[in-house]
């Protein structure tokens, strides 16, 4: 432990005196020689002792609490650290969020482009579809049936007993507006396209294996297991429907 005084490592002065009195003249000459060299141009490079090194004054960079050299820096320590950590923490949070945003933007650039997404919805003008008629549209690569049903058809479908259905669903659960029945025209058996206004139940008939669907698109006879699929659609106004 260096608990004792720190003194320079040299021997005690009076021991040196005998060594140096003889050489006193020599050394004072040496000292004089050194003076002009160091004095003339300080940056010329001889530094006579490490004690000549002056630590520059960093006051321009100090925080206000540690500007005064006569005040202990210990008390303000916690405050200064807290400030630094707060700024660092906040910046990291913002940085992580920014990084996440950038990365997800780059990753999502690989998802479906706008033109593809545009194909995912279809807007249909309903006033062009006469009553009793079924119009087929191409939507997402599949046929979409839009049928303008008459009151008689609606009444019939609503009155069907659910017990007789293979895939029981009430007509009200399959349409938003009973006048318009919108289903995907893909037979749930093996995927052929049923023919409209055909079959024994006033709906659709699939010629491939003989599945009969009614005017609500429900399977009534034949091998198909499920009703025709009802896609998501909404009516922005009475004359248009957007499917998808």
């Amino acid at each position: 432990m260096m608990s004792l005084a720190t003194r320079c490592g040299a021997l005690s002065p009076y021991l040196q005196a005998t060594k140096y009195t003889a050489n006193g003249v020599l050394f004072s000459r040496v000292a004089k020689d050194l003076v002009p060299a160091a004095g003339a141009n300080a940056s010329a490079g001889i530094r006579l002792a490490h004690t000549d090194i002056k630590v520059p004054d960093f006051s321009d960079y100090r925080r206000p609490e540690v500007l005064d050299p006569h005040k202990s820096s210990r008390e303000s320590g916690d405050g200064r650290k807290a400030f630094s950590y707060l700024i660092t923490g906040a910046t990291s949070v913002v940085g992580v969020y920014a990084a996440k945003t950038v990365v997800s933007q780059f990753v999502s650039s690989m998802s479906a482009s706008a033109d593809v997404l545009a194909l995912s919805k279809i807007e249909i003008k309903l006033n062009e579809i006469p009553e009793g008629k079924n119009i087929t549209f191409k939507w997402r690569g599949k046929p979409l049936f839009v049928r303008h049903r008459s009151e008689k058809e609606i009444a019939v479908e609503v009155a069907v007993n659910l017990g007789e259905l293979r895939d029981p669903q009430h007509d009200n659960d399959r349409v938003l507006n009973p006048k318009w029945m919108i289903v995907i025209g893909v037979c749930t058996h093996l995927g052929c396209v049923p023919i409209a206004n055909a079959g024994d139940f006033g709906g659709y008939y699939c010629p491939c294996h003989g599945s009969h669907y009614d005017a609500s698109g429900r399977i009534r006879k034949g091998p198909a297991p499920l009703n025709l699929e009802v896609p998501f659609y909404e009516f922005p106004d009475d004359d248009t429907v957007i499917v998808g």
Partner: protein
Amino acid sequence: MAASVCRVGSTVGRALVKNRSPILLSLRRGQASVSYAQSLVGAPETRLTALDNGLRIASEETGHATCTVGLWIDAGSRYESEKNNGAGFFLEHMAFKGTKKHPQTALEQQVESIGAQLSAYTSREHTAYYMKALAKDLPKAVELLSEVVQNCSLSEEEIEQQRSVVLRELEEVEGNLQEVCLDLLYATAFQGTPLGHSILGPSSNARILSRQDLVEYISSHYKAPRMVLAAAGGVSHNELVSLAKTHFSGMSFEYEGDAIPVLSPCRFTGSEICMRDDAMPLAHVAIAVEGASTASPDIIPLMVANCIIGSYDITYGGGKHLSSRLARLAVEQNLCHSFQAFHSSYSDTGLLGIYFVTDKHHIEDMMHWSQNAWMNLCTTLTESDVARGKNALKASLVGQLNGTTPICDEIGRHVLSYGRRIPLAEWDARINAVTPKMVRDVCSKYIYDKCPAVSAVGPVEQLPDYNRIRSAMYWLRF
């Protein structure tokens, strides 16, 4: 002046013989005469008196045939300003160059003829002039000391001659890289404050300090209330007091213009200074944090902590069985040539650190493991580490009092710092009270997540950037 001292070899046992009964001694023939606990309690008391002018006199009568007597003064490089930095050191050189009553040769003659040894040292907060002589020569010693301190002749011609000696010494100390490294550590840790001054002072001051500066220094700082006349050895306290009355009553206790120099606190700055020179064979690196003051209760746990880290030198024979973990690592991975944990404390602050010497390829590793040792102190210290540290500390405290001079030095410094001598029994009790939790808490208070001051001399390219060093002062796992 020859350095020969005829001091009769004297052991602690000798001092204790006086306190033990003969019967006990004969029963324990062949074994230690006293146990550690008994020796603590039986240690001679340090007596303290004060003169009217404020000078304190403290002595311990150890029964040696020799004695060390000296004056410890509350003056040092910390009391100096930029302009007179180095005055204390210069004055120390001038001290033995003759007094008003005894010119140099006469003074040397006086000291030589009683076979005594006159020495002095200057540190940052204390200055000491002391003499080692035979116990019976105490009166002469005190007289000479009083001459040296109060009536130094300070002749112009001597000053000029000593100037070149000081410059030569400054040049020489450049070769002592430990001193250079530690001086730079202080310069950067306490930058802008008086504690950053080197004791030696800059060479420019050594060239221009005049007699007037030295006289002013003496008159501002060599005042009776700031001095202690301390003695240890075969001295009688009463005799010492009467001698002091004779020689030191004239010591001044008033300041010019009532300007009592007051020490203002010194700001610690976490910072780094590197003196890179790839031509040097070894790098000397020191890292330190602000430590505890002498009077702080945290001193003891910190001293225990330093004993746990310990010190190491490539000449140690323990190899990988050394008790200090850092030393074991140093051996196994060839991390360094030497290291030591140090704690220098002053009246209101301190410097707690590790200093190591290593070659240029192991600086980074050594720094990493040193800071790892610090983190271990703050977080995962175990009962056995602390027990070992406590024992090592007790052993070193007792062991360093191996002679009248170390004892006298301790008396002088303690009275200046604490106002009394802290007896070994008290140190022992306070050390015993240290627990691992206390060490962890105290170390965390001073070390954990604090900005260190770093100084490095030599081929230090591998020294990590300061920000990395600062990041290693905490562990994310906690």
